[in-house]
């Protein structure tokens, strides 16, 4: 385990990665974190400040300067960010003028913290410097990667917080990141065990969330080293949903929610975002405009896997765009600098352009293999609608999808199956099906009503007519439906504990689609209170609902997009 953690610490590539770990680590060791690392604001060499006792020492003010990787000669004294410059700045500026008055009497320890090791060539410099400046009240200490690993193991991942069973599963999760499904299963075992511990003892909850956060970091870094972040992505999603489920009852109440858990929630959200962005920038962004490049990058000979993989990709990208939009709204509300808002907006524009390019350049995205992929389609709709509508693109995409729905339905070959098991999906694509096989494979559809509603709203008569035709001729047995949040969803949607919500059925697919739109609008209004009643909606964290939909493969509730099909919406046809 120690080897695992030491490698993890050594693999933290970015400065802000170690920054993210250290506060949780020192908190778990009993220190109180006073200031957390942040980028941009001037801190006079101090990346983090904490107060408390370590190893029976008297209460001390710890001032951390955090560096990345190994420290060699160049890191010691070259430039403003060098170790020596930071230490000088702490002594010259921070200690003399920035120590909070309540801690002014405490002894101070300056901690040089880094993930790797101090090179031998620099050792004399460190010894000389500390000997020269050390006093009764000012001490120096060095926390290298090995020490940080020890501290993580004795603190945040200690046996008290990570019992043997959880530890075993955690080790398996980390070791098997190249088989993400198995790794994720083991991580979920850890998550469930720790969640139960937190439920059993409220007072342990903050510590446990720290343990989970660090565990997630470890998993991510190992997954990244293995060049397969899938397990970490899924684990981050599940962790975030778990934290929200733990915290949701506190939000919106008078007393503030537990700050430790709230911080952990933010950290996991950030990590979730980092995991996706790193993956996206490294493997996807450069190839969005090359026809078929991403489909080919899946390196599989099975068309079903290509389809599933590509829809998974656009679903995740769309969800990321939705979070980015949400975060942009927050930045605007918080009145942050215009440049930061502009940069975020530019990033969203880029991602939206990429999303459209991916769809245009990988035609496999014009028809899913199974109905449950309606989730990804819904997420793309929401991402596009919330990022400036992009109706032309949606209409073109859905026109192409309509053509394929029509063709595959008419020929009983390749129509998205309502089956969910992988084996059954494979069977549903086994050439032209008999009537009996086709009917069994297409018992329900959420995709057809979704596409039909949009095409009707666009006034695209050809597409509406095709959908009506194929429905009448081939899909008379199919229950056309969509899913709505219900009164029982708040208790179940985040962790999918039980079936919940409402299936809106008997949707008619006709040439005009007028009745379909009318029913969808009515159903949307009738269940608005249920959606508004969700803690995520109440507190403004609406993307969590979409994240839950993605994670558990639920259709995106129509309230997220039905507004875009309003009668008073100028770009859309009047019905």
């Amino acid at each position, binding site marked *: 385990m120690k080897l695992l953690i030491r490698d993890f610490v050594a693999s933290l590539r970015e400065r802000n990665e170690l920054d993210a770990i250290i506060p949780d680590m020192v908190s778990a060791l009993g220190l109180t974190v006073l200031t957390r690392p942040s980028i941009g604001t001037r801190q006079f060499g101090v990346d983090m400040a904490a107060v408390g006792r370590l190893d029976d020492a008297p209460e001390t003010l710890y001032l951390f300067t955090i560096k990345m990787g190994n420290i060699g000669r160049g890191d010691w004294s070259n430039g403003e960010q060098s170790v020596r410059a930071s230490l000088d700045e702490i002594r010259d500026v921070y200690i003399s003028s920035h120590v909070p008055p309540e801690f002014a009497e405490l002894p101070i320890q300056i901690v040089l913290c880094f993930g790797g090791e101090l090179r031998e060539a620099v050792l004399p410099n460190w010894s000389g410097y500390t000997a020269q400046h050390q006093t009764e009240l000012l001490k120096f200490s060095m926390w290298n990667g090995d020490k940080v690993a020890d501290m993580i193991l004795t603190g945040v991942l200690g046996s008290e917080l990570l019992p043997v069973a959880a530890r075993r599963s955690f080790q398996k999760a980390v070791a098997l990141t190249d088989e993400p499904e198995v790794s994720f299963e083991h991580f979920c075992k850890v998550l469930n065990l720790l969640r139960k511990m937190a439920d059993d003892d409220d007072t342990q909850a903050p510590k446990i969330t720290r343990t989970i956060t660090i565990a997630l970091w470890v998993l991510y870094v190992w997954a990244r080293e293995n060049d397969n972040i899938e397990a970490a992505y899924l684990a981050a999603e599940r962790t975030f949903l778990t934290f929200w489920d733990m915290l949701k009852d506190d939000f919106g109440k008078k007393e503030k929610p537990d700050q430790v858990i709230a911080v952990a929630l933010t950290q996991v959200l950030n990590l979730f975002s980092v995991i996706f962005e790193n993956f996206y920038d490294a493997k996807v962004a450069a190839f969005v405009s090359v026809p078929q490049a991403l489909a080919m990058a*899946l390196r599989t000979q099975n068309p079903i896997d290509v389809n599933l993989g590509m829809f998974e990709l656009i679903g995740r990208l769309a969800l990321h765009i939705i979070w980015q939009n949400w975060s942009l709204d927050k930045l605007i509300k918080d009145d942050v600098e215009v440049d930061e808002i502009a940069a975020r907006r530019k990033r969203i524009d880029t991602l939206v352009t990429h999303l459209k390019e991916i769809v245009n350049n990988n035609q496999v995205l014009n028809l899913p293999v199974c109905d449950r992929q309606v989730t990804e389609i819904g997420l793309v709709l929401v991402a596009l609608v919330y990022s400036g509508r992009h109706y032309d693109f949606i209409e073109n995409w859905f026109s192409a999808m309509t053509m*394929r729905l029509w063709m595959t339905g008419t020929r009983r070959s390749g129509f998205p199956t309502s089956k969910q098991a992988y084996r059954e999906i494979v069977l549903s694509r086994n050439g032209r099906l008999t009537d009996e096989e086709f009917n069994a494979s297409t018992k329900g559809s959420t995709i057809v009503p979704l596409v039909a509603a949009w095409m009707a709203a666009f006034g695209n008569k050809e597409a509406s007519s095709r959908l009506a035709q194929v429905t009448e001729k081939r899909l008379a047995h199919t229950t056309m439906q969509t899913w709505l949040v219900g009164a029982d969803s708040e208790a179940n949607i985040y962790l999918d504990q039980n079936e919940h919500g409402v299936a809106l059925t008997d949707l008619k697919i006709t040439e005009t689609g007028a009745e379909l739109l009318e029913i969808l609008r009515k159903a949307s209004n009738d269940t608005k209170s249920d959606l508004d009643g969700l803690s995520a909606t109440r507190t403004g964290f609406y993307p969590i609902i979409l994240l839950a939909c993605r994670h558990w493969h639920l259709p995106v509730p129509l309230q997220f997009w039905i507004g875009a099909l309003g009668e008073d919406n100028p770009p859309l046809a009047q019905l």
Partner: protein
Amino acid sequence: MNSDTILDDLLEVGFSEDSELKKKIIENHNAGSNSIFCLVDNPRFIEMDQYSFFSFQHTLCEVIPALDANVEQIIDFVVALVAKGGTDGMSGQPNAGLRNWFSINTDAAMTAVATAKSQPGLIRDNLVFALEGLADEAVCWELVKSEVIEIQLSALTALGRGQFPVVEADIGAAILLSQIEQPLDERLLASFVLVAVKIIESSPQYEGLLSELLVRPFDPVKGIAHFTLAGVISEAPISENARIFELALKQLLNVNPEHKGTSARIAFELGKHLTSERGRAIVDFVRDYLFKNKALRSDDPLMGFICKLMANRKLFGYLLADWLGRAAVENSALLGRALAKSVEHSKVLNLDTSEIGLEPAHCMNLITRACGHFFTKPVLAAKIVIHTVSSIEEPEVHHLAANLLVDPLLSNYAGELLEFLQKIEAKDDPHGIAKLAVERSKTHLEAISSAPELVEFRPSERRRQMASNMHSDAVNKAHQESRKESVFLSMISTSTLLYGSRSRSYRRMARSEDGEELQMFDIPMQSISHSIELPRESIFDEIGLELRLIELKHTGYARK
């Protein structure tokens, strides 16, 4: 010499020739000492298998004309021999002997005619051989007027089968005209057509007679008349008798597609007689008439005929260019399907569009549709593209050709196709289209290949295993099904070797001098492998590929 002895002698001679035996059989029979007619009542003959019978059937056929007999006896004997032959194609051979017997015994032939006219029976059933033996045209024309259909048919068949010339065209035409006023059974109609063709051969002024017959509705189920029609199409002089040709072809197209044997026979009949010039005339007719007036079905018998035409090099180029380039979209789709099944690759290299005189829009249709129809034969499609545009100077056509070579061809196939395009010499590709396409495709492939593997979305080991098992099951099932239906496998016995690289067995073989001895059979094992290159899009976007091909097949560029 009893019938047992005759049988033994016949069996001993078998397929060989033995004039002595024939002479002996005839002499014994005609002397009354041993009638050959007893042979058919011999229990060993009755029990005999067909193969043994056919081994000496020819000897009997040659004996028949020289036998002394009355009409009833000779017909009884011949009918018994024919029956012994069963449904085999050779079973009718003794009838030739009967025809020859009547040509020698013309009085007996006249007796047979008289008997047939007066009563039904075996003599009436075999009247045609008597008439052919008699070779009297006047008697035949007289019998055509009979009210008994079997007699009419025998007379018409005798006239139409060409065993003797039809010279009394005026009389014949008059009789036929009087007959076709009445409703005709299909067998009669077919026979009338056959005779009408004979009349027209010597007297073209009676072309209208054949036209009259050909506008009659044929019964498509029985299909008998269509054999005759096929003969008319393949042999009638088109230039002089365009109307006949057209009518016959129209009738032919009404054949019931369910009647597979008829369709195949028609295609065979047409194909075997066609010359380039004749084929061209048929093509012209098909284009001008059929494509405008009749939507062909892919199972139309004409498709078989078209495929037959494909074997002709010049016609192939003409048909391909004409149909894929100029024809209406729905027809090009059907023809494309037929072509894709039957085309031989090497023939296409000789396609010269300058000879055909296609306009740029036709060329664009041709190359686009060819890429659609021959997508699974990418080298063939590429050959058509290159050869079509090599003699065309339109930059728009070149641009389209290069685009098509890149997508859908090179973007889907990289093996044999790439090799073919890289080897094309400048003289065969004066505009450098292949080179341009290969370069563009290379750039695209490099861009695609540089994308790192998205291992994150790789299916789990569990799913991979499941998909692999399901695939294996499907392959095994298909393999078993194909073995069940294999004609080859039904004809042979198989051995399964558990060890070794060769099979060795010993069989006891007969030796003429030393009796039997063991002989070794040694067969070295050989491996057989087969590989196909699947188009990439069948993995990346199989439904999109289907749609794309439909689009390519149905593209129609308008003439400027």
